[in-house]
């Protein structure tokens, strides 16, 4: 795609990755592809904010060249060291002999450890500014949003925030702005992004938003490093982040399981029917079949988590074990849960699941439930009632919004 003007003197020069389906190795399924957004600021001095993933370097260089000759770039701002944004920096710098590289101290260390380039660096911290002429680049360190090196670049004269990964979404589209695409699709991907990447850093998200508000930063456009640019309604994504960061949940349960011969699946569905009969929403997912990124997204606003597995050896099945390990890393707060599973002789999966859920900070509110081989009629009734009991606990639970309780 060609460069797109997003504000006076500011151009999107990034690339659209239509075909990527696995991100961060295989930890994130990008079912709608993604974009790597890079922004060119043309003023008396010229700055490039972030680059793109290395295989797309040529597209980036071509987009910049449509606007200015590459050698005119004065500043290469690296908001974040991760390869999807910094990958093309070594290539860009080959053509920009006078460009100074701008980033946090940690970014500099990380860039050196990734690319081993000998570049002209100027490290920055919160409050530092660089004048480009009419416009100023102002920097705000944002550690862990998404890595220790991360920072936001802000142009006060244009009220433009370029927060790198924060407020991003993995969507490939020929459109660049929030008002040009389907809102359901947009918020769905923004939620998936938050749930799978930023959820563990929720306390920092709240603190950073508070800090930005206190600084009196005016924002009329947010240009993140993935997906579309928020120009019509930047408050929409900020408000959504506040809600997600506060771990606000609804009366909803996610039942995630892995099954060998469909017995655990029958348990999942029967418990699900019981929960559903109480009016609580249920989402059921066989973790070895469905998109795990989407399941984590569904868990973002769910108050209850039920995890189940058949016993293999004396433990849970491997896909569920991997999923639970990821869930534990996401540090969900204020959720309630329980474990279930089928077994042949000794069992062990449900117990194992229960201990991981506990370690993940999920409050176990019902003893685990197990069935040998295939549930009989009496057991099915018990499973349904188990679901009813869990559904009622969801409705009564005050797990909603742990931060709101102060």
């Amino acid at each position, binding site marked *: 795609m060609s460069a797109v003007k997003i504000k006076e003197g500011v151009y999107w020069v990034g690339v659209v990755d239509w075909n990527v389906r696995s991100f961060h190795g295989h930890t994130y399924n990008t079912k709608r592809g993604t974009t790597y957004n890079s922004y060119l600021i043309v003023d008396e001095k010229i700055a490039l904010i972030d680059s793109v993933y290395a295989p797309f370097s040529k597209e980036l260089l071509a987009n910049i060249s449509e606007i200015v000759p590459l050698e005119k770039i004065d500043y290469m701002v690296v908001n974040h060291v991760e390869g999807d944004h910094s990958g093309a920096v070594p290539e860009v710098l080959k053509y920009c002999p006078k460009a100074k590289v701008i980033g946090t101290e*940690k970014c500099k260390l990380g860039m050196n450890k990734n690319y081993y380039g000998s570049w002209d660096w100027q490290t920055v911290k919160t409050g530092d500014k660089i004048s480009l002429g009419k416009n100023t680049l102002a920097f705000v*360190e944002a*550690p*862990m949003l998404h890595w*220790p090196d991360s920072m936001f670049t802000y142009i006060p004269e244009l009220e433009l925030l370029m927060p790198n990964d924060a407020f991003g979404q993995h969507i490939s589209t020929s459109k660049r702005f929030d008002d040009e695409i389907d809102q359901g699709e947009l918020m769905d991907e923004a939620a998936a992004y938050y749930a799978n990447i930023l959820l*563990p*850093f929720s*306390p*920092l998200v709240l603190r950073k938003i508070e800090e930005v508000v206190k600084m009196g930063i005016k924002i009329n456009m947010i240009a993140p490093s993935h997906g579309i640019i928020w120009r019509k309604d930047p408050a929409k994504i900020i408000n959504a982040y506040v809600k997600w960061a506060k771990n606000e949940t609804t009366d909803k349960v996610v039942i995630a399981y892995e099954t060998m011969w469909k017995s655990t699946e029958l348990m999942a569905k029967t418990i699900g029917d019981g929960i559903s009969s109480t009016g609580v929403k249920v989402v059921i997912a066989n973790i070895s079949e469905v998109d795990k990124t989407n399941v984590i997204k569904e868990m973002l606003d769910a108050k209850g988590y039920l995890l189940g597995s058949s016993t293999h050896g004396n433990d849970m099945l491997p896909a569920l074990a991997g999923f639970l390990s990821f869930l534990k890393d996401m540090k969900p707060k204020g959720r309630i849960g329980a474990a279930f599973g089928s077994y042949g002789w000794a069992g062990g999966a449900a117990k194992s699941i229960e201990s991981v859920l506990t370690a993940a*900070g999920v409050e176990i509110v019902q003893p685990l439930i197990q069935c040998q081989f295939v549930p009989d009629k009496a057991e099915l009734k018990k499973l349904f009632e188990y679901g009813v009991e869990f559904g009622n606990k969801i409705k009564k639970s005050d797990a909603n919004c742990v931060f709101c309780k102060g």
Partner: protein
Amino acid sequence: MKKYICTVCSYIYDPATGDPDGNIAPGTPFEMIPDTWVCPQCGVTKEMFKETI
């Protein structure tokens, strides 16, 4: 009691609140935290922390 900041992610350990999720009771001074404890935010070990105000 002194607060400590994680030099990697800027998480602040406040002894007044401790880190209940990491089994550190409120009122525990930083020096008394076991060496096996890790930063609840980014996972680095205790030696990556420094005193802060």
